[in-house]
């Protein structure tokens, strides 16, 4: 006979208890999960639910050798909570000051203390946070934490840092403390650099995310890394040269550009004065008497049009040779004072620095004759000359997208006065930016093809894969290769002992270039005291026209422009900019392993042909 575990009455009571218990639990469950569920869920949502934004990492900027130019770094903004200061903390203040790189007195002041004693106890009770320093590195902060001072703590924040300081600052630009990219490539490539924000739905308790309640997550997409064509060595070389120019000549501004003529790649671009993007807010305007102040943050190679002076003479010579109107040996009487312009006016010719008589085109370029250049332009006619000037890239933006760029000033023919056709060929009556002057010369070095300037080589994703590659862009052919080669040969004469820029010659290498000196316009008049001296050229000149793939050819175009140099006498381009060209070239020759020219043979041929006693 099966017996029960207990008498039937107790069994029923037990059963009733179990049922009631289950019933109570069931009721509570129904209450929590059904009846009160919406309200309770809402409460949880209100208290713990968070839509958390995940910030992407801004991409880094590298130079052509993969050297870091811009990155993000975390810093701690360290401060003191005076209410938590203990007496024993005061003994640690000298160590804290040392770690923070601050003056001990400043740290003591923040602590309301002096010589190890409180002097501002009441004040300490009222203030809850006194900032000590904003840019404390993580490593330094770890050391500070080891001091075991409860009152000292920091908040982490990201800042953009430029480890090479002012190197390529005008190209790279900078990002403000609020994260806004405001200048240079930082601004132009902001879309690619900044990445894409992510987000996650989760719950937070006591300020910390409860990862187990994470519902959905869209990860952030970090920004692309940017690889530039800029080479830090070249950039450093030209910035060093600018610093030397500044020290010796105290110019108002100066710019140097170095590029590869075959690809349009800029290898270095620098301006004086410059600034450190890490401390962009410390770059103050430099006041000038009776003129607009100079902003060191401006990329003057792109923003400031100047009258290019004689470097512009290659336009008239190139156009006249290209049109077949003249040859190197065509002669012009540069002794006469007037000329009949294409519009029928008899215009006064500009003066030359020294009186010349009959000159060949070769001599006009080598000796930089203003009158000779005017003769060439008059021969071409206004419209034809204007078209060539335009073709060389003047009056239009270069396409170098690194911030604000000026088109320069090139008035249409309809706005020219009777003198313009005689003044523009010598680089007056036109405003050109240093980058325009540079790329006009690069056009000759590249066999007559104008390239689009390029500073960005490629974009890479976080895994290092190439996301975007920027190839070279040929804008247009301006003159034939034959004409470019003939002009290059004329430009070599400029650097010869008979030319105006022999000082720019580099031993063992064929250099082609042109000096430029223009008077500055001060208060609406040409000043006889202030000049812009320039030199634009390339070397080795023979390498530029050697047949073969561009990857195997090593040729550099260098432009040096010095505005308002304080030197004895006139600040001629050959005097203020030519030597810098030479020094930069000499430093870059071993770096790029540029092979010397076959100088003797090359010059011997021309010596026989043109009766030029060159070297």
């Amino acid at each position, binding site marked *: *006979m*099966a*017996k*029960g*575990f207990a008498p*039937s009455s107790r*069994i029923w009571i037990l*059963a009733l208890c*179990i049922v009631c218990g289950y019933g109570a639990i069931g009721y509570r469950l129904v209450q929590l999960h059904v009846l009160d569920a919406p309200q309770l869920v809402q409460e949880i949502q209100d208290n713990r639910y968070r839509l958390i934004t995940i910030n992407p990492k801004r991409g880094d900027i590298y130079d052509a050798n993969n*050297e*870091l130019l811009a*990155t*993000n*770094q*975390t810093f701690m903004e360290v401060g003191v909570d005076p209410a938590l200061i203990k007496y024993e903390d005061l003994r640690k203040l000298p160590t804290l000051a040392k770690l923070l790189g601050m003056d001990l007195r400043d740290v003591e002041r923040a602590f309301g203390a002096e010589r190890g004693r409180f002097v501002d106890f009441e004040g300490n009770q009222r203030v809850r946070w006194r900032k000590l320093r904003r840019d404390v*590195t*993580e*490593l330094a902060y770890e050391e500070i934490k080891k001091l075991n001072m409860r009152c000292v703590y920091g908040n982490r924040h990201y800042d953009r*840092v430029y*480890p*090479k*300081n002012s*190197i390529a600052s005008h190209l790279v630009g900078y990002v403000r403390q609020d994260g806004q990219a405001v200048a240079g490539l930082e601004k132009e490539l902001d879309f690619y650099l900044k990445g894409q924000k992510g987000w996650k739905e989760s719950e937070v308790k006591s300020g910390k*995310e*409860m*990862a*187990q309640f*994470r519902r959905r997550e869209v990860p952030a997409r970090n920004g692309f890394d940017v690889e530039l064509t800029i080479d*830090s*060595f070249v950039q*450093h070389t030209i910035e060093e040269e600018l610093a030397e120019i500044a020290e010796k000549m105290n110019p108002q501004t100066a710019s140097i550009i170095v590029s590869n003529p075959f690809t349009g790649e800029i290898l270095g671009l620098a301006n004086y004065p410059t600034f450190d993007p890490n401390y962009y807010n410390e770059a103050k305007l430099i006041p000038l008497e009776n003129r607009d102040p100079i902003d060191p943050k401006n990329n003057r190679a792109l923003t400031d049009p100047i009258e290019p002076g004689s470097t512009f003479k290659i336009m008239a010579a190139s156009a006249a040779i290209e049109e077949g109107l003249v040859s190197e040996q065509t002669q012009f009487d540069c002794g006469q004072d007037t000329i009949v312009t294409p519009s029928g006016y008899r215009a006064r010719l500009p003066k030359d620095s020294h009186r010349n008589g009959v000159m060949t085109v070769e001599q006009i370029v080598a000796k930089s004759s203003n009158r000779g250049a005017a003769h060439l332009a008059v021969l071409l006619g206004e419209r034809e000359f204007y078209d060539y000037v335009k073709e060389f890239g003047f009056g239009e933006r270069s396409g170098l997208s690194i911030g604000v760029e000026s088109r320069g000033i090139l008035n249409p023919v309809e706005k020219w006065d009777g003198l313009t056709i005689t003044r523009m060929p010598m680089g007056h009556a036109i405003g050109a930016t240093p980058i325009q002057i540079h790329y006009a010369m690069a056009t000759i070095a590249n066999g007559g093809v104008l390239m689009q300037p390029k500073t960005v080589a490629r974009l890479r994703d976080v895994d290092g894969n190439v996301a975007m590659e920027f190839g070279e862009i040929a804008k247009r052919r301006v003159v034939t290769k034959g004409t470019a080669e003939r002009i290059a040969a004329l430009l070599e004469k400029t650097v010869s002992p008979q030319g105006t820029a022999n000082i720019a010659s580099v*031993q*063992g290498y064929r250099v082609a270039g042109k000096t430029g000196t223009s008077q500055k316009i001060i208060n609406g008049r040409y000043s006889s005291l202030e000049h812009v001296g320039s030199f634009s050229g390339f070397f080795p000149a023979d390498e530029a026209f050697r047949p073969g793939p561009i990857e195997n050819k090593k040729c550099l175009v260098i432009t040096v422009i010095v505005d308002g140099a304080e030197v004895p006498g006139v600040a001629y381009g050959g005097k203020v900019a030519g030597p810098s060209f030479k020094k930069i070239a*000499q*430093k870059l*020759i*071993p*770096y790029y*392993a540029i*092979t010397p020219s076959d100088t003797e043979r090359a010059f011997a041929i021309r010596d026989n042909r043109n009766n030029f006693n060159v070297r």
Partner: protein
Amino acid sequence: MNKRRGSKKAANQLLNRLILQSLGLLAVLGVFGLGTVWFRHQISGVANSINKLDSEIVVEERRLTQLDVELTKAKSASRLQKLNIDLALGLRPPHAGQIYRVSENVEARLDGKTAGAMLTASRTID
């Protein structure tokens, strides 16, 4: 009497079965409940571990970036120039006369040298 005893026996059997089944159900539910709690605890633990690892990765990335920055600063041309002066190292770039330009195919020459050394070694062993 027998009839009453028979019905009591059936009730006890039913009750016994009910109690046993209830206990069984409780045990199953308990195991299931505890299992769920353990499982959720494990999920929380893993989620928090992942979160912690993520934070550690971020910290390490921060340190790496800082190291990169320090390294770049240390390698910068201006810093090297300063060290050159401070430590009186007398280092300077080579001038034209010091540079020897190699016109032959360097790779082929080095390859030839390496292959030659290997052949010499093999001959020695023989």
